[in-house]
């Protein structure tokens, strides 16, 4: 292997390992935490940082422009839909109906 390939391998591998570390941490938190809000917090770790690190490592290890664009699209989708989903779950925990909050809409 050349020097450039070694550099690619090491940086990509470190990023991939960091992402796996965040995923394992979020799984352990999801198993050990006591209530649903704390578990939601643990799930958010893997959903944001873990997926970003894994995809960055993957983009460095095997670069393909279309593949990288698709992974960026997945990260964008997760980052938009994750907070919305957490909001819905929090509303469910608080016992209110989704989308119909008193005071924000007429009737």
């Amino acid at each position: 292997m050349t020097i450039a390939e070694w550099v690619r391998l090491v940086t990509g591998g470190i990023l991939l390992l960091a992402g796996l570390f965040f995923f394992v941490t979020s799984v352990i938190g999801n198993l050990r935490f006591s209530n649903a809000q704390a578990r939601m917090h643990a799930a958010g770790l893997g959903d944001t940082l873990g997926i970003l690190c894994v995809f960055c490592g993957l983009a460095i290890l095997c670069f393909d422009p279309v593949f990288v664009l698709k992974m960026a699209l997945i990260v964008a989708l997760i980052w938009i839909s994750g907070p919305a989903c957490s909001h819905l779950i929090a509303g469910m925990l608080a016992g209110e109906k989704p989308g119909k909050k008193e005071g924000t809409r007429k009737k």
Partner: protein
Amino acid sequence: MTYQEAVQAILTGAAAILACCALVCLARAVIGPAPADRLIAANMTGTQVMCMICLVAARTGEYGFADAAVIFAMFSFLASAVFVRIVTERRKDK
């Protein structure tokens, strides 16, 4: 060991670790006492499966597999929104 072989070994190991994480998460979704716990665990499983799909796509060299992960990301949000709606409707009926 060439570059390609080293990358394939790394990707296989990472996919195996992620598969173990997804299985543990699925166990949480089965035993979780409240509906919210199940929903959170199912969401996490979905994210990990998306990562696994991309890892396997890079491992086999068939980059088109990533399309499946994009669709998965769209539908997992739809599924959780519908799940929340069903739970709240059922609670209202009681």
